[in-house]
């Protein structure tokens, strides 16, 4: 038999389904319903913001890697995820240079300086947003608008002045809304026709995307469910409207798409539960007692920094460590 050229490689010789680029691409697909809903409610200006943000993040990764003479990794889709998320956590009418600078910072400083994909401590998109809101607080939080169709709900809640650029959480924080009238917001908060960041307002669209990620088995419910339930329980204990807190702000987006970021969340199931609860406690505390109306971004960033510690403290018990002889 002719000896053809045989490949010799170590076992295993087969691999299972999704590769990292496929997972990242699926995250982009899962974010699309919420991004499209943002464009639907806030107009084409939102689409321009998304395009600028994604282009900035992907372009920054390309240029920095070229400069550093490193292999270009934009093909793994992770920079696209970061760019898309940055646009989605900023106001829909934010000045365009803000998501661009946030994208360059997220990729250049938060991701590549730490060693690139897999080595970053903080979620790049959230760190980019935190950087922008800290550097230009007035500009980065301007540009919230109320979709025309939602003004009725605002009227019903406040009874005056429908022209506002404040989000429901800001109005609640300022004491402008509260009590039984909060239930009026449930519908708009669920559908998305309400003021907020570009991609955070429609719980429905976000949950459709989350279902896709669950169906593809890219995420588990451990972090999102513990996160959301913790916020609901704590706000409920303090006499707040738990459903309003769950649906408003960036909680659904943060819980399903940012806190579940593999790189910056714990690896072990037990650690993931701790992480989700920690995010929930911080978010509830910031919202109720902090200076900001919303706390999702900072909660996740703070918990990101605790991940190595959580991983260390929640190491699984290896096979045979507990002996049971039947």
């Amino acid at each position, binding site marked *: 038999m002719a000896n053809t050229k*045989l490949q010799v490689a170590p076992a295993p010789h087969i691999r299972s389904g999704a590769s990292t680029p496929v997972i990242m691409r699926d995250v982009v697909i899962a974010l699309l319903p919420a991004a499209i809903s943002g464009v639907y409610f806030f107009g084409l200006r939102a689409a321009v913001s998304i395009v600028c943000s994604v282009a900035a993040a992907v372009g920054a990764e390309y240029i920095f890697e070229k400069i550093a003479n490193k292999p270009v990794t934009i093909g793994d889709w992770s920079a696209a995820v970061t760019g898309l998320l940055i646009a989605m956590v900023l106001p829909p009418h934010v000045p365009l240079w803000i998501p661009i600078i946030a994208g360059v910072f997220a990729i250049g400083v938060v991701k590549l300086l730490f060693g690139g994909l897999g080595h970053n401590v903080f979620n790049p998109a959230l760190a980019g947003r935190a950087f922008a809101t800290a550097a230009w607080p007035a500009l980065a939080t301007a540009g919230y608008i109320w979709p025309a169709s939602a003004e009725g709900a605002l009227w019903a809640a406040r009874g005056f002045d429908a022209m506002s650029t404040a989000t429901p959480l800001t109005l609640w924080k300022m004491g402008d809304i509260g009590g039984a009238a909060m239930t009026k917001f449930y519908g708009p908060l669920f559908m998305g026709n309400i003021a907020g960041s570009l991609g955070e307002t429609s719980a429905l669209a976000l949950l459709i995307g989350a279902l896709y990620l669950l169906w593809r088995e890219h995420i588990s419910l451990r972090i999102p469910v513990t996160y959301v339930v913790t916020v609901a329980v704590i706000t409920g204990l303090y006499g707040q409207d738990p459903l309003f807190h769950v649906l408003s702000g960036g909680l659904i987006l943060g819980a399903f798409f940012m806190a579940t970021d593999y790189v910056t969340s714990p690896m072990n199931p037990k650690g993931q539960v701790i992480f989700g609860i920690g995010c929930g406690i911080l978010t509830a505390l910031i919202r109720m007692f902090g200076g900001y109306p919303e706390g999702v971004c900072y909660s996740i960033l703070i918990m990101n920094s605790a991940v190595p510690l959580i991983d260390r403290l929640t190491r699984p018990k290896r*096979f045979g460590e507990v002996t049971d002889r039947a």
Partner: protein
Amino acid sequence: MPKGSFRGGVHPPENKERTAALRTVVARRPSQVVVLLHQGSNCPLTPTVARGDHVRMGQKIADTEAKWGVPSHSPVSGKVASIGLVRTAFGAQDQAIFIEPDGEDVLDESCVPVDNVFSQPPEKLIEIIREAGIVGMGGAEFPTHIKLSLPPKVEVDTLLLNGAECEPYLTADHRLMVERPRDIVRGAQILMRAISVMRTRIGIEDNKPDAINAMRDAEVSAAGVEVVPVKTRYPQGSEKHLIKSVLGREVPPGRLPFSVGVVVSNVGTAAAVSDRFDRGLPLIERVVTVTGSAVATPMNLIAKIGTPASELIEACGGFVGEPGKIIFGGPMMGMAVPSADVPTGKGTSGILVMSQEESVAFKEMPCIKCGQCVDACPMRLEPAFLHQWSGAGLWDEAEAYHAMDCIECGVCTYVCPSRRNLVQAIKRAKFEISARRRAARERGGK
């Protein structure tokens, strides 16, 4: 956790359908057999024959004084053509005896059945098993007589026969259980006597209902023998996991199955034991599944040990297109061999020929800490961290993260979306840790 399973593991595509229903066929006599002098355990054997000698089938042709070694026997009658180097599955050159068959298959006079098996003392049975060259036939080639020679004060209550055959593609044990269930049960009875236990459990994955039925029919006549179907889940055939699935016991880290009262043996090994006692035959042939998309007509062959892979592939109609990889064993733990001329050994349960398209060279991407390896590891280790420590040469950390517990099943590498070579990194760490432990022992010893 339901009985019949364990935590972690994966279920890769089984790919057994091409051979699962095919009766075993005796492979045509090879033009040459190559008997390795370095089988299984690390004991090199010394030839007891010389070049030019005529040997008979079943005649002992190599042996060792070492406790861990077992002899080798000529799989055919014929002439010793030479004793020299051959390329092995590991890619290295190793000593082997080359025999040219004379086509007569004259049986050696030493090959006689054993009378009054059950009145022999256990030590005698173990000695006969060693003399028959029997090793574990599931792949590891661990000498069976060592497994049966239990240290004093160890109490075992169960013989566990491994009929899981969890590796994709392979159907050698499956066919053996369907076609020779009585011989397997007979082998189990001899093994039970050798370790003085009263009960045998036979663990079979539930994707082989015909094997489960056949073994159940055969088991009825034997006291203490019982078939236990287990979940189809890789690595169900791992000793520790099969014990967990069938008996609910977990072997503690660093310990052997007898520490939880069990001796595990492959169904093929049990059949080999029966062959020796009832037919007089030492271990000179076995079932080999020859399969894969680059093989014309996959088959389950009864092949002489030492048959070059190329001859078995030819018996199956040869290659389809250009082969990419020839794997000895299954796709999860098998070894990709450097040449089609590599001879089969006592533990070669399959020859898997993958096409060039299937033989992808995977490129490592950065770890994204997704935790899939942690979820899938049947030993509940953290392969992602172990890879990190191993890559950085941090052997103390690797040891603290229990690298030595790794059973090298390959599940972590299989699931990794970044296609990282996790199990290879852990093997490397195990090698380094063992070397350091050895060095420490030698320093501390004298």
